[in-house]
């Protein structure tokens, strides 16, 4: 560990804490949101430092792209000064001090305990079963074969979020921008090919190196958000595309469940994939999941049900 490395880590952690602090305790909403976006950027660097490139890819696509877009859009809808929630019941100052002090004590305790936390250490076991999974990259293997149930339920959670957002009312009509912006359609047109190319590349890479369905779906979704911004996806609002849209939204989950049931028939265990077809099936599930994650992110970004 050289001096340069130490100073790099120190700066990174200091920046992370500062931006996190500002995002939490800054009064002005816009400022807090921008601090949070910068916090996410530094978070991706931390993932890289901790040699977790898969997470860095997902964080880059979701944290920096989609979450920022969601927050900025919501910000344009909220009033400037006042609190938008219910008026909370104000606590007596004594209770507040007590709460802050106990939070500080538990943080100190956590810091003291952290170095001694037991590590799960499943690296050896995963290494041992890798040949039976059909892919060469450990994260993809765990994601879609060994712990596929988690991934299945996660897609279900996302679909539930879409259902919740859509049940709140019709799509929020975007307010017109301040002036005519000819750069926006140009931007979207220039970037379209890349927003198709890069997810394909990430999907293909996912079987043997960092990549896979999550970053691919998130990048595709971010491209969809750009199209929504440039007002280029009229079909999502049209009446007779609605059924297809809903079908596409559930396609990832449906294919996943079908694969699981097929595994139940062939091997007797839900979601276990026989080795012979594993590579092909995992690829198919990944493609369907990437598409439906992308579409679900776009659906969330609409903040309401289209076609109303």
């Amino acid at each position, binding site marked *: 560990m050289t001096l340069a490395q130490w100073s790099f880590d120190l700066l990174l952690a200091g920046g992370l804490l500062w931006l996190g602090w500002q995002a939490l305790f800054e009064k002005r909403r816009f400022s807090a949101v921008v*601090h949070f976006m910068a916090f996410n950027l530094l978070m991706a660097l931390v993932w890289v430092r901790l040699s977790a*490139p898969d997470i860095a*890819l997902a964080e880059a696509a979701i944290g920096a792209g989609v979450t*920022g877009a969601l927050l900025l*859009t919501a*910000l344009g809808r909220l009033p400037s000064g006042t609190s938008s929630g219910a008026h909370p019941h104000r606590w007596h100052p004594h209770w507040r001090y007590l709460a802050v002090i106990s939070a500080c004590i538990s943080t100190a305790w956590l810091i003291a305990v952290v170095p001694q936390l037991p590590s799960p250490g499943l690296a050896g076991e995963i290494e041992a079963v890798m040949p039976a999974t059909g892919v060469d990259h450990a994260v993809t293997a765990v994601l879609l074969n060994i712990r596929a149930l988690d991934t299945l339920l996660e897609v279900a959670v996302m679909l539930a979020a879409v259902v919740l957002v859509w049940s709140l009312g019709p799509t929020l009509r975007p307010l017109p921008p301040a002036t005519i912006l000819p750069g926006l359609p140009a931007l979207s047109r220039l970037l379209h090919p890349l927003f198709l190319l890069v997810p394909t590349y990430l999907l293909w*890479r996912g079987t043997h190196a960092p990549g896979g369905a999550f970053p691919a779906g998130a990048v595709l979704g971010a491209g969809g958000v*750009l199209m929504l911004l440039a007002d280029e996806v009229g079909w999502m609002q049209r009446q007779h595309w609605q059924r297809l849209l809903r079908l596409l939204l559930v396609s990832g989950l449906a294919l996943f469940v079908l694969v699981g049931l097929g595994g139940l028939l062939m091997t007797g265990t839900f979601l276990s994939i026989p080795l012979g077809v594993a590579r092909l099936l995992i690829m198919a599930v990944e493609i369907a999941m990437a598409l439906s994650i992308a579409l679900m992110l776009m659906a969330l970004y609409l903040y309401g049900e289209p076609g109303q």
Partner: protein
Amino acid sequence: MTTLYLVAAALLLVNASVGAWRIRQGPTSADRMLAAELISTSTIAVLLLLSALADNPALVDVALLFAMLAAIATANFVTRTWTLLRQDHHSREEAGHD
């Protein structure tokens, strides 16, 4: 080479801290957004330097994603957050001064 690039990466982080100062300082929301963009570009540069250091091509992919998504935040800010034609007078103030 290793030390040179590490020092360069640390310098870029110092650079990004200037962006953090500007995000805090404002004075307009566009300033904050621009400063966030500077941090994003510095992050891309650090990622490229780290990928050269560790000889890890996956990091260039992360940088590529950041570069693609840099435009989305700006476009979103201009079309959805900073809209002039809002009825609310206060929010218009905020667009100019916060």
